[in-house]
């Protein structure tokens, strides 16, 4: 067989616009080489500098490229307003999460296991938990995950999107299993996340096959034009849309695909939980809006009621189940499910406002949730973090500063004015009303009212109870965690008081290209 020598057209690559992803993947590969060749004691500093440097560089490149609106790499990657905005958000949230991950003063050696292959619960394991410095594989894994997420939000065809999904999912599965303490819980969470995530990926892939069967295309533009012009039965189209949406909603933590969230959020090391709850949400919703707005534009009469029902279910499941939680990490997990519902409400505005409010909400929620998990890492006793809610009673007396910060973050989650939680919710609900989806907003408000109860219960417990014998201490955070808390708290406040600049930015960015 001969291959036509001149038929092969090389795709045009806009290296400048692809640079953020190339920087992160390159830095991650260098990070793996550091793990291989640099002596153990020097690795931490090198990895931290490399990770921070790569993320800052990626953020700067995204900002300088912010005017780019083009399809590149043979139309496999779309660098348009939403993609660049989400890439910038991922880099910024990634920097904050990295600071939390790199904290080593709260616990000798840091929150990660030194040698993950040592059997949990053995004498050797206790020795390494007490003495040895944490392994540093988590830094390259973080960079791989962030690079994959950036590709995920800018993928312009289904196969690129699937590859990106795997690129960011596989490091996340690993990172969940790296906790220094309560290792069986951590490994269980990694296993559960891996198994359920694999099923979700398989559904996603099957959906791609169905959509290809319908349209003969994998690019979003191709699917869109096939929807407009095709005369064949739409059965394959709707099966494909349902399966692809299932895969994305699983990552976004929407009910009924949410069951992995509480276990994984609880078992994973808290800095990783913070990273997942902020960045995975940005990535998953970034991909979901692109699929719905670019590929399936014009079929909204068909998918809107279904995804609307999922949004309602998500808000109600998240808010009602968070009332019964007794563990702070599980409470924040259910609250993250409810927040996925609010973001879905914004997505279903299906307008420019819907898009820009979704982008806005993702950023505000990300900063607040990272800071909230940052406070969780501070409340500790001899066995590590004390996450049971009863242990948080009277914490306001022990440490007014951090209890005050946590109170502020809880009020932001509850949507009190002058916090970013309020402006974010206002934006998504207004977009949904603008799109004629008032019924979603009714459920959204009801769910917010239910959700205020568990948040305020934590606040009341912290301030109005006397500290008991079992009240743990609040550790003094090192510089890195302090920076995380300061950035997260400030972002929550500033985006609540003066949201206009970011809203302008999201409005400006809210235009897909096809």
């Amino acid at each position, binding site marked *: 067989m001969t*291959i*036509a*020598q*001149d*038929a*092969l057209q*090389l795709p045009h690559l806009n290296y400048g616009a692809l640079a953020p992803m190339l920087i992160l993947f390159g830095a991650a*590969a260098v990070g*793996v*080489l550091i*793990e*291989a*060749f640099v002596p153990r004691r020097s690795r931490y500093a090198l990895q931290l500098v490399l990770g921070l440097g790569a993320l800052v560089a990626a953020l700067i490149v995204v900002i300088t490229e912010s005017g780019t609106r083009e399809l590149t790499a043979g139309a496999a990657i779309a660098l348009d307003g939403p993609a660049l905005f989400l890439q910038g958000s991922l880099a910024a949230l990634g920097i904050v999460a990295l600071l939390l991950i790199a904290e080593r003063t709260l616990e000798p050696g840091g929150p990660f296991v030194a040698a993950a*292959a040592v059997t949990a619960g053995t004498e050797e394991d206790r020795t390494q938990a007490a003495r040895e410095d944490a392994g540093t594989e988590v830094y390259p894994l973080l960079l791989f995950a962030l690079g994959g997420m950036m590709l995920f939000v800018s993928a312009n065809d289904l196969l690129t999107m699937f590859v990106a999904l795997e690129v960011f999912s596989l490091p996340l599965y690993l990172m969940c299993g790296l906790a220094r303490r309560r290792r069986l819980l951590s490994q269980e969470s990694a296993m559960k996340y891996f198994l359920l995530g694999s099923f979700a990926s398989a559904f996603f892939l099957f959906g791609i096959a169905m959509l290809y069967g319908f349209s003969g295309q994998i690019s979003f533009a191709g699917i869109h034009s096939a929807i407009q012009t095709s005369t064949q039965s739409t059965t394959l189209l709707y099966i494909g849309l349902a399966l692809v949406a299932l895969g994305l909603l699983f990552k976004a933590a929407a009910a009924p695909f949410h069951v992995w969230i509480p276990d994984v959020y609880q078992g994973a090391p808290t800095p990783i939980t913070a990273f997942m709850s902020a960045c995975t949400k940005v990535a998953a919703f970034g991909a979901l809006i692109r699929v719905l707005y670019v590929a399936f534009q014009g079929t909204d009469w068909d998918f809107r009621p279904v995804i609307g029902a999922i949004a309602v279910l998500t808000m109600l499941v998240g808010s009602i189940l968070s009332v019964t939680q007794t563990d702070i990490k599980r409470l924040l997990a259910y609250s993250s499910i409810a927040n996925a519902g609010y973001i879905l409400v914004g997505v279903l505005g299906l307008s420019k406002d819907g898009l820009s409010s979704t982008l806005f909400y993702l950023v505000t929620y990300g900063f607040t949730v990272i800071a909230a998990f940052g406070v969780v890492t501070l409340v500790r006793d001899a066995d590590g973090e004390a996450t049971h809610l009863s242990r948080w009673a009277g914490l306001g007396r022990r440490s007014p500063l951090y209890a005050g910060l946590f109170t502020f973050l809880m009020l932001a989650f509850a949507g009190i004015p002058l916090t970013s939680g309020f402006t974010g919710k206002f934006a998504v609900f207004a977009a949904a009303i603008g799109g004629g989806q008032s019924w979603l907003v009714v459920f959204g408000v009801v769910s917010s009212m239910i959700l205020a109860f568990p948040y305020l219960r934590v606040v009341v417990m912290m301030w109005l109870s006397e500290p008991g014998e079992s009240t743990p201490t609040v550790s003094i955070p090192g510089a890195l965690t302090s920076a995380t808390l300061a950035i997260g708290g400030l972002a929550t406040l500033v985006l609540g008081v003066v949201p206009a600049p970011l809203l302008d930015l999201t409005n400006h960015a809210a235009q897909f290209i096809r």
Partner: protein
Amino acid sequence: MNLGQWVPIVGLVVLGALFALFSVAIAPVVGPNRPNRAKLSAYECGIEPTPEPVGSGRRFPVKFYLTAMLFIVFDIEIIFLYPWAVSFNALGTFGFVEMLLFIATAFVAYAYVWRRGGLDWD
């Protein structure tokens, strides 16, 4: 639609199934039966069979997993190398540089495994 053209394929499937059933059924009847230990053991490509862990609580050494993972790294590398080699001229310098980069990244994984002791069996 004319299904008649598929009849030979169905016939072939039926024939294949009949032949397999016939072979299995006839072998113990006509063949001599002289078992020994080597013949009865599980077939593992001519290697002495490794005893399997039985029951719960016994573990496979993680080394098998490492070896399998490393195999997959090179397996995937080969899958990309063949089509590249076939269309080398058409892809030109761009394809050559891309392939070098790809091999370099695969080598990063290999270097990590090698330096961290993944290749030492004991």
